């Protein structure tokens, strides 16, 4: 077994006659037996990468190896060992949760008794037991999402792909799914590749993550390393009122989040700004930098660089809108 379960090199993907590539020489290595998260804005290329890695889509150029096998020439061997929960999928309206999981297992060739046992176990895990016989059309969006997750995690495969798996789930449901994914990794040694917009999810689950923007990997590493590598020795300070944007701009780059003006500064400066803010009776809060902040910083900088390279000025420097 190679050290990396997926190795993508200079992957390029153009859809139809699009001028901008969905993937732009993307290079990525996913370690085996870990939870790997792809973070990125809508249209960043996360799903395109997943579709190529799961042998559903051919790249325009570049190479990708899954289990050490060339995904372009050995799709059949790879397909036996993977499963995917696609983004925005919908369960089939006439089937219930139990049917879906059973179908997912039996279509992969499992016997009825084996599939039924596994289906019951997984339905229990994702807390669908009470509604297992209800048609999916009569279930809430969150319950339907759980069905899709159950269909994937029930499959006894080495590598699972989950494209935005917890969208629409309530906080408790999300945590339940997180626990199961961690259990699958730790107890069964499975590798899980997931995409998400939720930074807390990425922090809670990922052994490693990559931030993707415009089809390129901007940064890859362990969440703590990614955080430490960007906005390091800084704290986040949020201010509402009391200052003009220009005034705060003299301390550093100001990010507008609704009415909040956000800065990343070092501890000393943060304390100074806080004191001044309190003197002016402005609302102020000081917190450690989160992955969310790092994401905005990295992706925001990339957007600014692209805009500068295109010569259109982009957004006003020093005032990125989140």
């Amino acid at each position, binding site marked *: 077994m190679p050290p990396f379960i997926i190795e993508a090199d200079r992957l390029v993907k153009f859809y139809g006659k699009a001028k901008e590539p969905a993937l732009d020489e993307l290079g990525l290595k996913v370690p085996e037996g870990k939870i790997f998260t792809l973070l990125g804005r809508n249209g960043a290329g996360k799903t395109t990468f997943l579709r190529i890695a799961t042998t559903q889509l051919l790249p325009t150029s570049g190479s990708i190896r899954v289990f050490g096998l060339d995904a372009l020439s050995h799709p059949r061997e790879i397909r036996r060992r993977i499963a995917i929960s*696609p983004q925005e999928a919908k369960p089939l309206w006439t089937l219930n949760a139990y049917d879906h999981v*059973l179908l997912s297992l039996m279509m992969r060739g499992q016997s009825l008794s084996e599939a039924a046992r596994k289906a019951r176990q997984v339905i229990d895990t994702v807390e669908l037991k009470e509604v297992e016989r209800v048609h999916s059309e009569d279930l809430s969006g969150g319950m339907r999402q759980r069905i899709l997750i159950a269909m994937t995690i029930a499959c006894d495969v080495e590598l699972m792909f989950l494209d935005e798996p917890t969208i629409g789930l309530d906080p408790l449901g999300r945590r339940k799914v997180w626990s199961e994914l961690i259990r699958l990794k730790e107890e069964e040694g499975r590798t899980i590749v997931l995409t998400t917009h939720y930074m807390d999810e990425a922090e809670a689950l990922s052994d490693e993550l990559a931030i993707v923007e415009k089809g390129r990997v901007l940064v890859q590493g362990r969440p703590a390393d990614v955080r430490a590598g960007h906005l390091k020795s800084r704290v986040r300070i949020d201010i509402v009122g009391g200052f003009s944007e220009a005034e705060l701009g003299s301390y550093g780059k100001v990010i507008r989040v609704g009415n909040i003006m956000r800065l990343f500064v070092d501890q000393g400066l943060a304390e100074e700004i806080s004191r001044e803010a309190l003197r002016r009776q402005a609302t102020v809060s000081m917190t450690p930098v989160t992955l969310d902040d790092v994401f905005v910083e990295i992706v925001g900088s990339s957007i600014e660089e692209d805009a500068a390279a295109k010569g259109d000025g982009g957004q006003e420097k020093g005032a990125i809108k989140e």
Partner: protein
Amino acid sequence: MTWRWASKVWRNLRTIGSLCYYLGIVPMYRIPTLLPFVFATPFTILFILGVNGNPTSFHYGIAGAITMTVSQQGLFLGADLTNYKIEHKFQSMVVASPVSPLTYMFSVALSELAFAAPAIAILLAVVASTTAGIASTAIAQVIAVVLMTWVTTSSIGFFLSTYLLNTRTAFLTVSFISILLSILPPVFYPVSLIPSRFRWLAELVPTTHSSVLIQNAVGLPVAGSEVFASWLALPCFTVAFLLLALFKAKWRES
């Protein structure tokens, strides 16, 4: 070697059985109100031909209704597969699994045939009750034609589904092709009614041959040369469209 082959066949049978059961049989018994949609068009045409009062027209109508019911279900496979692909993303799960495109196509096509089975059974019962002394070879002939028509139109449906990009156009495309395959050509009427200089056009349509063979099986007057030509043409169409589905359908998108 033999054991591995047998195990592979058994796994494929499970795949086919589960997909056919959950995509065809379960919806049929859970929502039986869907069944009239299968019956609607062929039985309406049959009704019109029946009230016309001409027994010969009614028998042509039966041959046409059998052909149309089967070909319509084959084509609906295309619309349903597009729906599974675009709306449900179910096909994404299937592509990223050991299920081959042929197995998937065959399984879903079987589920469509299961849905059409009650309508076909009624039509065969009508054939039996209105045709005195129909031979068992004729019934076998009808079943063989039904199977070839099913494979042909399912292959067309599967091929189309891999290119169709949304469900709205899928249903419109399939309905339009259904008219081209089941209403315009000599499916509900004898091929001899078409002027001889245009007959070659009708012969380019596989369902023309299906209907000619069923017309012959139920005892309607069909020229021996036409029957012979249709027995040659229909299997050729079946193989050609099956190969088209296997080799030209886009299972993995580019």
